[in-house]
């Protein structure tokens, strides 16, 4: 267990308890030299993952360190490994489906050994792991949690498109309630996915992660701040990126921004981060985006045909709204504080 503290400040947060200086806030991410995923990838039109990975690589460029990436099997692996230029100057290891976390440990062990032999400095590298939601919530969970529990340095990025997309849209542990996938079909007896998804930041914090965050490529300043922080903070850090998938969500390819914005305004996706202070056994939570007006989740369900069955059933829409409200209620203290104390920060690093 740990004490929960809230940052009163809502919004972009380049500060960290663990870092002496704030990280850079880049208004135009295009200003950073290209590091990959600009062309030659096999991503579908409107894929959020390509944009997300591109921003991760650009943000890591700001650290000046060499990126050693371990990527698990999944969409991102399929679309970026047919052309080595996709990864720019990063070194990439595509491992198996279940073991992205384990590979991160292997990399760290090797870097430490090289350092002891005087052949390399572990500080010169960013140990980056990347996997999809299937490779994170399902088959890769054991390796991920074990890696976090070992307390090793690294940044694990989960590109969450909420199902197994490259094998034909099968449900995963991150699939939202009521979604129609090929293994959770919407039928007369069973109405789509009956499970509510787990939450990666919760799992990672429980396992002992030093820093966890959610992000989305539409809010690139926020995403790139978080990546820089995760790369700089000592210990295991986890970032989960909301990845729009027109193919699996059965949405139009040109509504990337609209869907993301609706996700944020209906609070189906919450942008936040949490930093762990081990000495004081506390975790500081920061809400990075609070919509002025809470739009009903039914609006979010409209743009995606994966919800076409469940959105017609009032009780399923209601339950989805309940799930959202329950999760959002976690932020009540900071929301209440903001009503009375404006933009002042509860906790100052």
């Amino acid at each position, binding site marked *: 267990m740990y004490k929960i503290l809230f940052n009163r400040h809502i919004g972009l947060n380049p500060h960290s308890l663990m870092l002496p200086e704030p990280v850079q806030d880049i208004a135009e991410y295009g200003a950073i030299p290209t590091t990959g995923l600009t062309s030659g990838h096999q991503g579908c039109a409107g894929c959020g993952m390509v944009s997300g990975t591109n921003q991760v690589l650009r943000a890591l460029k700001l650290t000046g360190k060499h990126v050693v990436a371990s990527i698990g099997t999944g969409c991102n692996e399929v679309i970026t490994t047919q052309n080595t230029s996709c990864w720019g100057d990063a070194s990439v290891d595509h491992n198996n489906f279940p073991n992205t976390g384990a590979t991160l440990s292997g990399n760290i062990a090797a870097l430490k050994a090289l350092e002891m032999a005087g052949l390399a400095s572990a500080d010169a590298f960013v140990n980056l792991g990347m996997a999809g939601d299937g490779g994170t919530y399902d088959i890769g*969970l054991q390796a991920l949690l074990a890696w976090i529990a070992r307390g090793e340095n690294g940044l694990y990025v989960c590109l969450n498109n909420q199902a197994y997309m490259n094998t034909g849209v099968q449900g995963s542990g991150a699939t939202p309630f009521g979604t129609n996938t090929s293994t959770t079909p919407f039928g007369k007896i069973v109405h789509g996915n009956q499970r509510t998804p787990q939450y990666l930041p919760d799992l990672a914090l429980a396992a002992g992660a030093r820093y966890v965050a959610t992000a989305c490529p539409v809010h690139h300043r926020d995403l790139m701040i978080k990546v820089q922080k995760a790369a700089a903070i000592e210990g295991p850090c986890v970032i989960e990126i909301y990845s729009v998938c027109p193919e699996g969500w059965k949405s139009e390819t040109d509504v990337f921004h609209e869907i993301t914005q609706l996700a944020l305004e209906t609070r189906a996706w919450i942008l936040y981060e949490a930093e762990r202070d081990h000495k004081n056994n506390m975790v500081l939570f920061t809400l990075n985006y609070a919509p002025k007006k809470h739009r009903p989740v039914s609006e979010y369900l409209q743009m995606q045909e994966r919800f076409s069955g469940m959105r017609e059933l009032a009780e399923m829409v209601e339950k989805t709204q309940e799930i959202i409200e329950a999760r959002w209620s976690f932020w009540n203290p900071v929301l209440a504080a903001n009503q009375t104390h404006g933009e002042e920060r509860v906790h100052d690093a």
Partner: protein
Amino acid sequence: MMHDFTLRVAGESGEGVITVGETVARIAAREGLQLVTFRTFPAEIKGGACMMQLRLSDQKISYHGEKVDCLVALNQAALDENFPDLKEQGVLLCEAECDVIEDGLSATVYKVPFERIAVREIGSRISKNIVVLGVLAELLAIPKPRVEEFLAEKFAKKSEAILDHNMQALEKGICFARENFSKREGFGFPPGKPERHLLMTGNEAIALGSAAAGVKCFFGYPITPASEIMEWLAVHLPRMGGKVLQTEDEISAICAVAGASWAGEKAMTATSGPGVSLMSEALGLLSIAEIPAVIVDSQRGGPSTGLPTKTEQSDLMLAIHGSHGDAPRVVIAPTSVSECITMMGAAFYFAEKYQMPVIVLVDQALSARVETVKPGIVEEIPKSSRLRAQAPAEGNFARYKLANSPVSPAAIPGTDGCEHMVTGMEHDEFGNFACDDETHTAMTVKRFRKLEEIEHDPLTQNLCQSIGEGRADIGVVTWGSSAGPVEEAIAEARRLGISVRGLVPKILNPLPHAQMKKFFSEVNRVIVPELNFTGQLASQLRATYRVPTISLTKIKGVPLEPSEIVAKIIEATDGLQQRSARRYGRAR
């Protein structure tokens, strides 16, 4: 009238290539024709080259055809890639903008502005495939009402405007062909009231066969090319009183199968090679704990992630030997879509009767292949049941009783008087952990004796197909989906006057020894064609029967072609002739 016709449609994934192929396939099946298809998948999620090939015949066929009578190429890349497979007198239909060198070409070439017709005359690029369908309908003399009837059903749930669009596109395609083509393929549909066939993929057949065999619990994890089995069952099994659960990985899937099966229900999983690798430890558990289980492995190119969307037969050794220790299991391999149905029955029959894991080996080509299946085939599925225990009159229930039969009566957990423990540790008759040499030997012998009994089971006798009879110079042994091309190759080699016959064991562990030995005693040379690098069946045959084999292996991600096998047969025959010539020379 031509009654054996091969058509290939090639283009980019997402262009409607598969829709065209499937429509022709479904209409042909309704008209009582037999058909076998083959399709490729790009590794990309969207885009990338893909093709679908259909062979239609009024006779039984077992292979999708080598050279094609008609090639439809929707772009230049598809044309360049597929043109070498067009027969000399074949017909090429290609997008008008494609470059074709027509000098010295004996094939008929028709350039059709598919895209322009769709965009300019229909106003919708996605109607292009229906224009293609119209052109094909005219070329192949498929009666227009039959295509219209099919489209009406296909678009029944869509708006009338969409159906109207498609009908217009069909008409435009037909008109274009009528006005511009001089040649007709003349592939007529047989007259009269045809016997309709069912049309399904190998994966659908596996799912249907499992349901018909009485599976009640399916546990799985998504993996290409096996996912459709779980997807089909997710839709249909709940209505049959069954349960489908997607687990977090393959280890959980097979362990859930172990749990459900121990609890008394027929349970299975379906995966591909990487999944079986993860399941290997549990295969040993199922073996030592004597729990019935069915595992479908739809093989793909390996190792590791390998070639996820391409076919290969490289998991045979893994299926027979995968897992540590001496862990017997049954391995069977259907050769056609129809057999995917009946042999799922065989899988449950062996699993339940002999209380052990059964692996069903298919491959990507068979999983994705669409084939005609005769209605009522589920009636041929063998019935299966587990030997049930009675509570003992006195003393404890011996779950692993050492008796004449290696199969001990099993009890559902919770049966009064039959309380017991199953375990992955070596155990005595009652399930108590025992690691003394006598128990380990007796129990290992018990488990392996099941394979001996299976070898003599009446069902096993039907799981070996002989192609031809009696003595022959050349014998061809193959397995799984390679049986189709082998059958065609043998027919062709015989036409060339070569003495050749074939054998296709459909049970690979234990092998049907009596039939195998008889075959080897009747042929002079043995060729073993299979889709892997090391010749896995060939080495199994050498180890088991000490018979010299000539391996024909291929790892190009596509099925064997009959011509490759014929060439190997001729090569082997030449060797024989030279040898006999030398002998003859010495004798003189």
